[in-house]
Protein backbone atom coordinates (compact mmCIF):
# COMPACT_ATOMS: atom_id res chain seq x y z
CA UNK A 1 0.00 0.00 0.00
CA UNK A 2 2.81 2.37 0.94
CA UNK A 3 4.58 1.61 -2.30
CA UNK A 4 1.39 2.19 -4.26
CA UNK A 5 0.93 5.61 -2.69
CA UNK A 6 4.56 6.46 -3.35
CA UNK A 7 4.18 5.41 -6.96
CA UNK A 8 1.02 7.48 -7.28
CA UNK A 9 2.73 10.57 -5.90
CA UNK A 10 5.80 10.01 -8.08
CA UNK A 11 3.57 9.61 -11.11
CA UNK A 12 1.73 12.85 -10.43
CA UNK A 13 5.07 14.59 -9.82
CA UNK A 14 6.43 13.35 -13.14
CA UNK A 15 3.31 14.50 -14.97
CA UNK A 16 3.68 17.95 -13.45
CA UNK A 17 7.35 18.08 -14.42
CA UNK A 18 6.34 17.24 -17.99
CA UNK A 19 3.80 20.04 -18.03
CA UNK A 20 6.35 22.49 -16.66
CA UNK A 21 8.82 21.48 -19.37
CA UNK A 22 6.36 22.15 -22.17
CA UNK A 23 5.31 25.33 -20.41
CA UNK A 24 8.91 26.49 -20.39
CA UNK A 25 9.19 25.86 -24.11
CA UNK A 26 5.93 27.70 -24.70
CA UNK A 27 7.49 30.89 -23.39
CA UNK A 28 10.56 30.69 -25.59
CA UNK A 29 10.95 32.42 -28.88
CA UNK A 30 10.49 30.38 -32.03
CA UNK A 31 13.64 29.03 -33.61
CA UNK A 32 12.13 28.90 -37.10
CA UNK A 33 11.81 31.83 -39.48
CA UNK A 34 9.15 32.77 -42.01
CA UNK A 35 11.19 31.65 -44.98
CA UNK A 36 10.02 33.54 -48.05
CA UNK A 37 9.67 36.71 -45.98
CA UNK A 38 12.80 36.34 -43.92
CA UNK A 39 16.02 34.63 -44.89
CA UNK A 40 18.94 33.26 -43.07
CA UNK A 41 22.29 34.84 -43.70
CA UNK A 42 24.24 31.70 -44.38
CA UNK A 43 27.70 31.25 -42.85
CA UNK A 44 30.56 32.51 -44.98
CA UNK A 45 31.94 29.03 -45.63
CA UNK A 46 28.70 27.12 -46.04
CA UNK A 47 28.60 24.93 -49.11
CA UNK A 48 25.97 26.03 -51.58
CA UNK A 49 26.04 27.02 -55.21
CA UNK A 50 29.26 26.16 -57.05
CA UNK A 51 30.67 28.98 -59.15
CA UNK A 52 33.74 29.75 -61.21
CA UNK A 53 35.74 32.72 -60.03
CA UNK A 54 36.83 35.54 -62.27
CA UNK A 55 40.05 37.45 -62.11
CA UNK A 56 39.21 41.09 -61.53
CA UNK A 57 42.18 42.41 -63.49
CA UNK A 58 41.62 40.65 -66.77
CA UNK A 59 37.95 39.72 -66.39
CA UNK A 60 38.82 36.12 -67.23
CA UNK A 61 38.34 32.91 -65.33
CA UNK A 62 41.04 31.78 -62.95
CA UNK A 63 40.60 28.27 -64.26
CA UNK A 64 43.53 26.76 -66.11
CA UNK A 65 41.70 23.63 -67.24
CA UNK A 66 44.02 21.43 -65.22
CA UNK A 67 41.14 18.95 -64.70
CA UNK A 68 41.94 18.46 -61.00
CA UNK A 69 38.40 19.31 -59.92
CA UNK A 70 36.97 17.04 -62.55
CA UNK A 71 39.05 14.18 -61.18
CA UNK A 72 38.24 15.05 -57.59
CA UNK A 73 34.49 15.17 -58.12
CA UNK A 74 33.04 11.99 -56.55
CA UNK A 75 29.76 12.16 -58.46
CA UNK A 76 31.19 13.20 -61.78
CA UNK A 77 29.24 16.41 -61.96
CA UNK A 78 32.03 18.45 -63.52
CA UNK A 79 32.94 18.11 -67.13
CA UNK A 80 35.71 20.23 -68.62
CA UNK A 81 36.37 20.60 -72.30
CA UNK A 82 39.92 21.55 -73.19
CA UNK A 83 41.34 23.12 -76.31
CA UNK A 84 44.68 22.68 -78.05
CA UNK A 85 46.76 25.25 -79.79
CA UNK A 86 48.38 24.75 -83.21
CA UNK A 87 51.35 22.99 -81.65
CA UNK A 88 49.05 20.41 -80.07
CA UNK A 89 49.69 21.75 -76.58
CA UNK A 90 46.78 22.01 -74.18
CA UNK A 91 45.60 25.58 -73.78
CA UNK A 92 45.47 26.71 -70.16
CA UNK A 93 41.92 27.91 -70.28
CA UNK A 94 38.70 25.83 -70.25
CA UNK A 95 36.93 25.70 -73.59
CA UNK A 96 33.84 24.38 -71.89
CA UNK A 97 33.00 23.90 -68.22
CA UNK A 98 29.79 22.06 -67.41
CA UNK A 99 28.49 21.58 -63.89
CA UNK A 100 25.55 19.22 -63.51
CA UNK A 101 23.53 20.21 -60.45
CA UNK A 102 21.41 17.07 -60.74
CA UNK A 103 24.24 14.99 -59.38
CA UNK A 104 26.40 17.56 -57.62
CA UNK A 105 26.51 16.61 -53.94
CA UNK A 106 28.01 19.89 -52.72
CA UNK A 107 30.91 18.10 -51.05
CA UNK A 108 33.38 20.87 -51.83
CA UNK A 109 36.12 18.54 -53.05
CA UNK A 110 36.46 20.57 -56.26
CA UNK A 111 37.22 23.64 -54.22
CA UNK A 112 39.67 21.66 -52.09
CA UNK A 113 41.51 20.32 -55.10
CA UNK A 114 41.73 23.57 -57.01
CA UNK A 115 45.18 25.11 -56.85
CA UNK A 116 44.26 28.31 -58.65
CA UNK A 117 41.31 29.63 -56.60
CA UNK A 118 39.15 29.09 -59.63
CA UNK A 119 36.14 27.14 -58.32
CA UNK A 120 34.31 27.89 -55.10
CA UNK A 121 31.24 26.83 -53.16
CA UNK A 122 29.28 29.92 -52.16
CA UNK A 123 26.63 30.39 -49.45
CA UNK A 124 23.98 30.99 -52.12
CA UNK A 125 21.31 28.31 -52.02
CA UNK A 126 18.36 29.53 -54.04
CA UNK A 127 18.73 28.37 -57.62
CA UNK A 128 15.81 26.07 -58.37
CA UNK A 129 14.49 25.71 -61.89
CA UNK A 130 11.22 24.49 -63.39
CA UNK A 131 13.09 22.86 -66.23
CA UNK A 132 15.58 20.28 -65.00
CA UNK A 133 17.78 20.81 -68.05
CA UNK A 134 18.44 24.32 -66.80
CA UNK A 135 20.28 22.86 -63.83
CA UNK A 136 23.17 21.91 -66.07
CA UNK A 137 25.22 25.07 -66.05
CA UNK A 138 27.78 25.95 -68.66
CA UNK A 139 30.93 28.00 -68.29
CA UNK A 140 29.36 31.42 -68.88
CA UNK A 141 26.56 30.81 -66.40
CA UNK A 142 29.02 29.60 -63.75
CA UNK A 143 31.17 32.65 -64.36
CA UNK A 144 28.17 34.98 -64.24
CA UNK A 145 27.02 33.61 -60.88
CA UNK A 146 30.54 33.92 -59.47
CA UNK A 147 31.07 37.55 -60.38
CA UNK A 148 30.04 38.98 -57.02
CA UNK A 149 31.86 36.38 -54.95
CA UNK A 150 34.68 37.69 -52.83
CA UNK A 151 37.77 35.56 -52.57
CA UNK A 152 41.46 35.74 -51.97
CA UNK A 153 43.19 35.65 -55.32
CA UNK A 154 46.45 33.85 -55.69
CA UNK A 155 49.64 35.61 -56.60
CA UNK A 156 50.44 35.12 -60.27
CA UNK A 157 53.89 34.75 -61.70
CA UNK A 158 52.78 35.97 -65.09
CA UNK A 159 50.75 38.92 -66.18
CA UNK A 160 47.29 38.95 -67.73
CA UNK A 161 48.65 38.65 -71.26
CA UNK A 162 49.16 34.95 -71.01
CA UNK A 163 45.60 34.47 -69.69
CA UNK A 164 44.10 36.56 -72.44
CA UNK A 165 45.95 34.60 -75.05
CA UNK A 166 44.91 31.27 -73.53
CA UNK A 167 41.28 32.39 -73.38
CA UNK A 168 41.36 33.51 -76.98
CA UNK A 169 42.87 30.21 -78.05
CA UNK A 170 40.34 28.21 -76.07
CA UNK A 171 37.40 30.06 -77.57
CA UNK A 172 38.88 29.95 -81.06
CA UNK A 173 39.05 33.71 -81.26
CA UNK A 174 42.05 35.45 -82.82
CA UNK A 175 44.59 36.49 -80.25
CA UNK A 176 44.77 40.30 -79.91
CA UNK A 177 47.75 41.49 -82.01
CA UNK A 178 49.24 43.74 -79.31
CA UNK A 179 49.56 40.73 -77.07
CA UNK A 180 51.24 38.75 -79.80
CA UNK A 181 53.58 41.69 -80.37
CA UNK A 182 54.36 41.94 -76.71
CA UNK A 183 54.93 38.22 -76.57
CA UNK A 184 57.18 38.29 -79.57
CA UNK A 185 59.17 41.14 -78.06
CA UNK A 186 59.43 39.25 -74.81
CA UNK A 187 60.59 36.13 -76.58
CA UNK A 188 63.11 38.13 -78.55
CA UNK A 189 64.45 39.68 -75.36
CA UNK A 190 64.59 36.28 -73.80
CA UNK A 191 66.44 34.82 -76.73
CA UNK A 192 68.88 37.70 -76.65
CA UNK A 193 69.44 37.23 -72.96
CA UNK A 194 69.93 33.55 -73.56
CA UNK A 195 72.43 34.19 -76.28
CA UNK A 196 74.23 36.66 -74.07
CA UNK A 197 74.33 34.19 -71.22
CA UNK A 198 75.60 31.51 -73.52
CA UNK A 199 78.29 33.82 -74.80
CA UNK A 200 79.26 34.76 -71.30
CA UNK A 201 79.42 31.14 -70.24
CA UNK A 202 81.50 30.36 -73.26
CA UNK A 203 83.87 33.16 -72.45
CA UNK A 204 84.11 32.03 -68.87
CA UNK A 205 84.79 28.49 -69.91
CA UNK A 206 87.43 29.73 -72.29
CA UNK A 207 89.06 31.73 -69.52
CA UNK A 208 89.01 28.75 -67.25
CA UNK A 209 90.51 26.60 -69.92
CA UNK A 210 93.28 29.02 -70.48
CA UNK A 211 93.88 29.49 -66.78
CA UNK A 212 94.29 25.87 -65.92
CA UNK A 213 96.47 24.02 -68.39
CA UNK A 214 96.25 20.28 -67.92
CA UNK A 215 94.45 17.16 -69.16
CA UNK A 216 92.14 16.78 -66.21
CA UNK A 217 90.36 20.17 -66.76
CA UNK A 218 89.24 19.27 -70.23
CA UNK A 219 86.84 16.66 -68.87
CA UNK A 220 85.53 19.13 -66.28
CA UNK A 221 84.55 21.73 -68.88
CA UNK A 222 82.88 19.02 -70.91
CA UNK A 223 80.75 18.08 -67.95
CA UNK A 224 79.84 21.73 -67.26
CA UNK A 225 78.37 22.70 -70.55
CA UNK A 226 75.54 20.16 -70.83
CA UNK A 227 74.45 21.05 -67.29
CA UNK A 228 73.94 24.64 -68.32
CA UNK A 229 71.90 23.59 -71.29
CA UNK A 230 69.49 21.73 -69.03
CA UNK A 231 69.05 24.85 -66.93
CA UNK A 232 68.20 26.93 -69.96
CA UNK A 233 65.55 24.56 -71.18
CA UNK A 234 63.92 24.65 -67.76
CA UNK A 235 63.62 28.42 -67.92
CA UNK A 236 62.09 28.24 -71.37
CA UNK A 237 59.01 26.30 -70.45
CA UNK A 238 56.30 28.54 -69.01
CA UNK A 239 55.17 27.29 -65.66
Amino acid at each position, binding site marked *: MGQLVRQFVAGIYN*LVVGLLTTGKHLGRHAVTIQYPKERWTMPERSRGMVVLLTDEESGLLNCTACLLCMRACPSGAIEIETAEDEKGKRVRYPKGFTLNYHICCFCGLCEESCTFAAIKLTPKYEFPEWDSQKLIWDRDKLQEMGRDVKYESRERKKGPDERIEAAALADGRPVPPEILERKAAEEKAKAEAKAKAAEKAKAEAQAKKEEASGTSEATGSKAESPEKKVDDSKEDTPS
Partner: protein
Amino acid sequence: MELAPIFTWLYNRLLTVGLGLELTDIISLAALAVIVFGFLSVMALFLVWWERKFAGHIQQRFGPMMTGWHGVLQTIADAVKLIQKEDIVPAAADRKVFFWAPVIVFVCSFAAYVVIPFGNGLIVSDLNIGILYVIAITTFTIISLLMAGWASNNKYALLGGMRSAAQAVSYEVPMVLAVLGVVLVTGSMSMNDIVKGQSAWGGFHWNIVFQPLGFLIYIIAATAESNRTPFDIPEAEQELVAGYNVEYSGMKFAMFFLAEFVNMFTLSAVATTLFLGGWNGPLLPSWVWFLIKTLGMVLVFMMFRWTYPRLRVDQLMEFAWKALVPLAFVNLIYVGIMARWVNW
Protein backbone atom coordinates in the same frame (compact mmCIF):
# COMPACT_ATOMS: atom_id res chain seq x y z
CA MET B 1 -23.16 43.06 -19.55
CA GLU B 2 -25.52 40.16 -19.07
CA LEU B 3 -27.05 38.74 -22.21
CA ALA B 4 -30.09 36.99 -20.71
CA PRO B 5 -32.23 40.17 -20.35
CA ILE B 6 -31.69 40.94 -24.04
CA PHE B 7 -33.08 37.56 -25.01
CA THR B 8 -36.02 37.98 -22.65
CA TRP B 9 -36.74 41.40 -24.11
CA LEU B 10 -36.60 40.03 -27.65
CA TYR B 11 -38.95 37.19 -26.70
CA ASN B 12 -41.44 39.62 -25.16
CA ARG B 13 -41.23 41.86 -28.24
CA LEU B 14 -42.12 38.85 -30.41
CA LEU B 15 -45.07 38.13 -28.13
CA THR B 16 -46.35 41.69 -28.28
CA VAL B 17 -46.00 41.86 -32.07
CA GLY B 18 -49.03 39.63 -32.16
CA LEU B 19 -47.75 36.24 -33.11
CA GLY B 20 -49.27 33.39 -31.22
CA LEU B 21 -47.51 31.80 -28.26
CA GLU B 22 -46.67 28.66 -30.23
CA LEU B 23 -45.25 30.55 -33.19
CA THR B 24 -43.18 32.80 -30.90
CA ASP B 25 -41.77 29.76 -29.15
CA ILE B 26 -40.88 28.10 -32.44
CA ILE B 27 -39.22 31.24 -33.78
CA SER B 28 -37.27 31.90 -30.60
CA LEU B 29 -36.11 28.29 -30.33
CA ALA B 30 -35.02 28.26 -33.96
CA ALA B 31 -33.16 31.52 -33.40
CA LEU B 32 -31.52 30.04 -30.31
CA ALA B 33 -30.49 26.97 -32.28
CA VAL B 34 -28.93 29.16 -34.96
CA ILE B 35 -27.14 31.26 -32.34
CA VAL B 36 -25.74 28.24 -30.50
CA PHE B 37 -24.80 26.55 -33.74
CA GLY B 38 -23.08 29.66 -35.03
CA PHE B 39 -21.25 30.21 -31.77
CA LEU B 40 -20.03 26.64 -31.70
CA SER B 41 -18.93 26.65 -35.32
CA VAL B 42 -16.91 29.79 -34.78
CA MET B 43 -15.58 28.35 -31.54
CA ALA B 44 -14.54 25.10 -33.25
CA LEU B 45 -12.74 27.02 -35.99
CA PHE B 46 -11.08 29.16 -33.37
CA LEU B 47 -10.04 26.13 -31.34
CA VAL B 48 -8.45 24.43 -34.32
CA TRP B 49 -6.42 27.56 -34.98
CA TRP B 50 -5.60 27.94 -31.30
CA GLU B 51 -4.46 24.37 -30.99
CA ARG B 52 -2.20 24.72 -34.00
CA LYS B 53 -0.69 27.93 -32.70
CA PHE B 54 -0.28 26.41 -29.27
CA ALA B 55 1.38 23.29 -30.66
CA GLY B 56 3.66 25.46 -32.74
CA HIS B 57 4.77 27.57 -29.84
CA ILE B 58 5.35 24.57 -27.60
CA GLN B 59 7.62 23.18 -30.29
CA GLN B 60 9.17 26.61 -30.77
CA ARG B 61 7.64 27.14 -34.18
CA PHE B 62 5.16 29.82 -35.20
CA GLY B 63 2.28 27.67 -36.37
CA PRO B 64 0.03 29.18 -39.04
CA MET B 65 1.19 32.69 -39.92
CA MET B 66 0.22 33.53 -43.47
CA THR B 67 -3.58 33.85 -43.63
CA GLY B 68 -4.71 36.87 -41.70
CA TRP B 69 -3.21 38.15 -38.48
CA HIS B 70 -0.97 35.34 -37.20
CA GLY B 71 -2.97 32.93 -39.34
CA VAL B 72 -6.40 33.41 -37.71
CA LEU B 73 -8.14 32.77 -41.00
CA GLN B 74 -6.25 29.53 -41.58
CA THR B 75 -9.05 27.23 -40.42
CA ILE B 76 -11.60 29.15 -42.47
CA ALA B 77 -9.41 28.67 -45.52
CA ASP B 78 -9.08 24.99 -44.66
CA ALA B 79 -12.83 24.64 -44.25
CA VAL B 80 -13.43 26.31 -47.63
CA LYS B 81 -10.92 23.95 -49.19
CA LEU B 82 -12.62 20.93 -47.61
CA ILE B 83 -16.05 22.03 -48.85
CA GLN B 84 -14.71 22.32 -52.38
CA LYS B 85 -13.25 18.83 -52.31
CA GLU B 86 -14.73 15.86 -54.06
CA ASP B 87 -16.85 13.61 -51.86
CA ILE B 88 -15.17 10.24 -52.22
CA VAL B 89 -16.93 7.08 -51.04
CA PRO B 90 -14.91 3.86 -51.16
CA ALA B 91 -16.33 1.31 -53.55
CA ALA B 92 -16.62 -1.36 -50.86
CA ALA B 93 -18.10 0.98 -48.27
CA ASP B 94 -21.51 0.59 -46.72
CA ARG B 95 -22.86 3.75 -48.29
CA LYS B 96 -25.75 4.49 -45.96
CA VAL B 97 -23.79 3.99 -42.75
CA PHE B 98 -20.85 5.79 -44.29
CA PHE B 99 -23.04 8.80 -44.95
CA TRP B 100 -24.80 8.90 -41.59
CA ALA B 101 -21.76 8.48 -39.35
CA PRO B 102 -20.43 12.05 -39.68
CA VAL B 103 -23.94 13.45 -39.50
CA ILE B 104 -24.61 11.69 -36.22
CA VAL B 105 -21.29 12.69 -34.69
CA PHE B 106 -21.93 16.27 -35.73
CA VAL B 107 -25.48 16.42 -34.44
CA CYS B 108 -24.65 14.67 -31.17
CA SER B 109 -21.74 16.88 -30.35
CA PHE B 110 -23.87 19.95 -30.95
CA ALA B 111 -26.95 18.57 -29.18
CA ALA B 112 -25.10 18.51 -25.88
CA TYR B 113 -25.31 22.31 -25.80
CA VAL B 114 -29.01 22.25 -25.06
CA VAL B 115 -28.23 22.08 -21.36
CA ILE B 116 -24.88 23.87 -21.08
CA PRO B 117 -25.30 27.05 -19.02
CA PHE B 118 -23.29 29.69 -20.89
CA GLY B 119 -24.15 32.34 -18.35
CA ASN B 120 -26.71 33.47 -15.83
CA GLY B 121 -29.95 32.47 -17.55
CA LEU B 122 -28.16 31.68 -20.78
CA ILE B 123 -29.31 28.09 -21.12
CA VAL B 124 -31.36 26.77 -23.99
CA SER B 125 -33.37 24.39 -21.85
CA ASP B 126 -32.81 23.75 -18.15
CA LEU B 127 -33.57 20.03 -18.10
CA ASN B 128 -33.87 18.50 -14.64
CA ILE B 129 -31.66 15.62 -15.85
CA GLY B 130 -29.13 17.99 -17.44
CA ILE B 131 -25.88 16.24 -16.65
CA LEU B 132 -27.33 12.81 -17.45
CA TYR B 133 -28.45 14.17 -20.80
CA VAL B 134 -24.97 15.50 -21.56
CA ILE B 135 -23.34 12.18 -20.70
CA ALA B 136 -25.88 10.25 -22.76
CA ILE B 137 -25.61 12.45 -25.83
CA THR B 138 -21.81 12.66 -25.81
CA THR B 139 -21.61 8.88 -25.50
CA PHE B 140 -23.72 8.67 -28.63
CA THR B 141 -20.75 9.94 -30.67
CA ILE B 142 -18.98 6.65 -30.00
CA ILE B 143 -21.67 4.80 -31.93
CA SER B 144 -21.04 7.05 -34.90
CA LEU B 145 -17.29 6.48 -34.66
CA LEU B 146 -17.94 2.75 -34.70
CA MET B 147 -20.27 3.25 -37.66
CA ALA B 148 -17.58 5.21 -39.49
CA GLY B 149 -14.99 2.55 -38.77
CA TRP B 150 -17.27 -0.26 -39.85
CA ALA B 151 -18.70 1.36 -42.94
CA SER B 152 -15.33 2.41 -44.34
CA ASN B 153 -14.45 -1.25 -44.93
CA ASN B 154 -10.86 -0.48 -44.09
CA LYS B 155 -8.85 -2.36 -41.51
CA TYR B 156 -7.35 0.79 -40.04
CA ALA B 157 -10.70 2.50 -39.80
CA LEU B 158 -12.30 -0.54 -38.21
CA LEU B 159 -9.49 -0.91 -35.69
CA GLY B 160 -9.76 2.77 -34.87
CA GLY B 161 -13.49 2.58 -34.41
CA MET B 162 -13.23 -0.53 -32.23
CA ARG B 163 -10.53 0.98 -30.08
CA SER B 164 -12.51 4.17 -29.75
CA ALA B 165 -15.60 2.29 -28.62
CA ALA B 166 -13.68 0.13 -26.15
CA GLN B 167 -11.87 3.10 -24.71
CA ALA B 168 -14.93 5.30 -24.43
CA VAL B 169 -17.00 2.60 -22.77
CA SER B 170 -14.22 1.97 -20.27
CA TYR B 171 -13.65 5.58 -19.39
CA GLU B 172 -17.34 6.36 -19.24
CA VAL B 173 -17.51 4.48 -15.93
CA PRO B 174 -15.02 6.54 -13.88
CA MET B 175 -16.28 9.70 -15.52
CA VAL B 176 -19.87 9.11 -14.48
CA LEU B 177 -18.72 8.10 -11.00
CA ALA B 178 -16.79 11.36 -10.73
CA VAL B 179 -19.83 13.32 -11.91
CA LEU B 180 -21.92 11.44 -9.37
CA GLY B 181 -19.93 13.03 -6.58
CA VAL B 182 -21.02 16.46 -7.73
CA VAL B 183 -24.62 15.36 -8.12
CA LEU B 184 -24.47 13.91 -4.62
CA VAL B 185 -23.39 17.21 -3.13
CA THR B 186 -25.76 19.35 -5.17
CA GLY B 187 -28.76 17.08 -4.85
CA SER B 188 -29.81 17.86 -8.41
CA MET B 189 -28.88 16.89 -11.93
CA SER B 190 -29.95 20.21 -13.42
CA MET B 191 -26.95 22.12 -14.75
CA ASN B 192 -28.35 25.40 -13.45
CA ASP B 193 -28.74 23.98 -9.96
CA ILE B 194 -25.21 22.62 -10.01
CA VAL B 195 -23.86 26.07 -10.92
CA LYS B 196 -26.00 27.81 -8.34
CA GLY B 197 -24.84 25.31 -5.74
CA GLN B 198 -21.32 26.72 -6.18
CA SER B 199 -22.27 30.39 -5.91
CA ALA B 200 -21.35 30.83 -2.22
CA TRP B 201 -18.11 32.50 -1.11
CA GLY B 202 -18.54 35.26 -3.68
CA GLY B 203 -18.70 32.74 -6.51
CA PHE B 204 -15.68 30.74 -5.44
CA HIS B 205 -17.38 27.86 -3.61
CA TRP B 206 -16.15 25.51 -6.31
CA ASN B 207 -16.57 21.78 -6.19
CA ILE B 208 -12.92 21.29 -7.12
CA VAL B 209 -11.93 22.58 -3.69
CA PHE B 210 -13.87 19.77 -2.00
CA GLN B 211 -13.43 17.04 -4.58
CA PRO B 212 -9.97 17.44 -6.12
CA LEU B 213 -9.78 13.71 -6.73
CA GLY B 214 -13.11 13.76 -8.53
CA PHE B 215 -11.89 16.61 -10.71
CA LEU B 216 -8.69 14.73 -11.54
CA ILE B 217 -10.63 11.62 -12.49
CA TYR B 218 -13.03 13.66 -14.59
CA ILE B 219 -10.18 15.38 -16.43
CA ILE B 220 -8.43 12.11 -17.21
CA ALA B 221 -11.63 10.41 -18.32
CA ALA B 222 -12.60 13.44 -20.40
CA THR B 223 -9.24 13.37 -22.18
CA ALA B 224 -9.88 9.73 -22.99
CA GLU B 225 -13.46 10.48 -24.04
CA SER B 226 -12.36 13.09 -26.54
CA ASN B 227 -9.71 10.72 -27.97
CA ARG B 228 -6.89 13.10 -27.29
CA THR B 229 -3.26 12.30 -26.55
CA PRO B 230 -2.22 10.48 -24.02
CA PHE B 231 -5.32 8.44 -24.84
CA ASP B 232 -5.45 8.82 -28.61
CA ILE B 233 -4.96 5.20 -29.63
CA PRO B 234 -8.17 5.30 -31.73
CA GLU B 235 -6.36 7.62 -34.12
CA ALA B 236 -2.78 6.70 -33.38
CA GLU B 237 -1.11 7.92 -36.55
CA GLN B 238 1.85 5.63 -36.29
CA GLU B 239 -0.30 2.51 -36.07
CA LEU B 240 -3.61 3.34 -37.71
CA VAL B 241 -2.86 6.07 -40.25
CA ALA B 242 -5.72 8.21 -38.94
CA GLY B 243 -8.14 5.83 -37.24
CA TYR B 244 -11.86 5.77 -37.99
CA ASN B 245 -11.75 8.69 -40.45
CA VAL B 246 -9.12 7.30 -42.85
CA GLU B 247 -11.56 6.96 -45.72
CA TYR B 248 -13.33 10.24 -45.18
CA SER B 249 -12.58 13.29 -47.23
CA GLY B 250 -14.03 16.68 -47.97
CA MET B 251 -17.03 17.88 -46.03
CA LYS B 252 -17.53 14.62 -44.13
CA PHE B 253 -14.01 14.76 -42.83
CA ALA B 254 -14.55 18.39 -41.86
CA MET B 255 -17.61 17.33 -39.87
CA PHE B 256 -15.58 14.75 -37.94
CA PHE B 257 -12.86 17.25 -37.39
CA LEU B 258 -15.12 20.02 -36.13
CA ALA B 259 -17.09 17.57 -33.98
CA GLU B 260 -13.86 16.54 -32.30
CA PHE B 261 -13.14 20.09 -31.26
CA VAL B 262 -16.74 20.78 -30.29
CA ASN B 263 -16.53 17.66 -28.11
CA MET B 264 -13.43 18.98 -26.45
CA PHE B 265 -15.21 22.26 -25.80
CA THR B 266 -18.22 20.36 -24.41
CA LEU B 267 -16.07 18.40 -21.99
CA SER B 268 -14.33 21.60 -20.89
CA ALA B 269 -17.69 23.30 -20.46
CA VAL B 270 -19.01 20.40 -18.38
CA ALA B 271 -15.83 20.42 -16.27
CA THR B 272 -16.31 24.15 -15.74
CA THR B 273 -19.94 23.71 -14.79
CA LEU B 274 -19.40 20.78 -12.47
CA PHE B 275 -16.13 21.62 -10.77
CA LEU B 276 -15.04 25.18 -11.52
CA GLY B 277 -18.16 27.05 -10.46
CA GLY B 278 -19.68 27.47 -13.91
CA TRP B 279 -20.50 31.09 -14.70
CA ASN B 280 -20.07 32.22 -11.09
CA GLY B 281 -17.58 35.00 -10.63
CA PRO B 282 -17.25 38.60 -9.49
CA LEU B 283 -17.21 41.82 -11.55
CA LEU B 284 -17.23 40.39 -15.07
CA PRO B 285 -20.46 39.25 -16.73
CA SER B 286 -21.34 35.61 -16.15
CA TRP B 287 -20.81 34.48 -19.76
CA VAL B 288 -17.31 35.98 -19.76
CA TRP B 289 -16.47 33.99 -16.66
CA PHE B 290 -17.82 30.88 -18.31
CA LEU B 291 -15.72 31.46 -21.42
CA ILE B 292 -12.57 32.20 -19.42
CA LYS B 293 -12.89 29.05 -17.35
CA THR B 294 -13.83 26.85 -20.30
CA LEU B 295 -11.02 28.10 -22.49
CA GLY B 296 -8.67 27.62 -19.56
CA MET B 297 -9.79 24.01 -19.40
CA VAL B 298 -9.27 23.68 -23.16
CA LEU B 299 -5.77 25.00 -22.61
CA VAL B 300 -5.16 22.27 -20.04
CA PHE B 301 -6.31 19.64 -22.53
CA MET B 302 -4.01 21.11 -25.18
CA MET B 303 -1.15 21.16 -22.72
CA PHE B 304 -1.79 17.46 -22.04
CA ARG B 305 -1.80 16.70 -25.72
CA TRP B 306 1.57 18.25 -26.44
CA THR B 307 3.24 16.97 -23.28
CA TYR B 308 2.38 13.35 -22.71
CA PRO B 309 3.24 10.32 -24.81
CA ARG B 310 0.57 7.88 -25.91
CA LEU B 311 -0.50 4.92 -23.77
CA ARG B 312 -0.54 1.40 -25.08
CA VAL B 313 -3.92 -0.32 -25.45
CA ASP B 314 -3.43 -2.68 -22.52
CA GLN B 315 -2.07 0.12 -20.34
CA LEU B 316 -5.09 2.18 -21.24
CA MET B 317 -7.57 -0.49 -20.19
CA GLU B 318 -5.57 -1.35 -17.09
CA PHE B 319 -5.49 2.26 -16.08
CA ALA B 320 -9.23 2.67 -16.51
CA TRP B 321 -10.36 -0.43 -14.69
CA LYS B 322 -7.60 -0.95 -12.12
CA ALA B 323 -6.82 2.63 -11.20
CA LEU B 324 -9.54 5.07 -12.15
CA VAL B 325 -12.63 3.05 -11.25
CA PRO B 326 -11.44 2.16 -7.71
CA LEU B 327 -10.30 5.75 -7.21
CA ALA B 328 -13.68 6.98 -8.39
CA PHE B 329 -15.39 4.73 -5.84
CA VAL B 330 -13.08 6.01 -3.12
CA ASN B 331 -13.97 9.54 -4.18
CA LEU B 332 -17.66 8.71 -4.11
CA ILE B 333 -17.47 7.26 -0.60
CA TYR B 334 -15.45 10.24 0.56
CA VAL B 335 -17.93 12.70 -0.91
CA GLY B 336 -20.85 10.77 0.60
CA ILE B 337 -19.32 10.85 4.06
CA MET B 338 -18.40 14.51 3.82
CA ALA B 339 -21.79 15.52 2.47
CA ARG B 340 -23.57 13.65 5.24
CA TRP B 341 -21.55 14.72 8.28
CA VAL B 342 -19.45 17.74 7.47
CA ASN B 343 -22.05 19.52 5.36
CA TRP B 344 -19.97 21.91 3.24
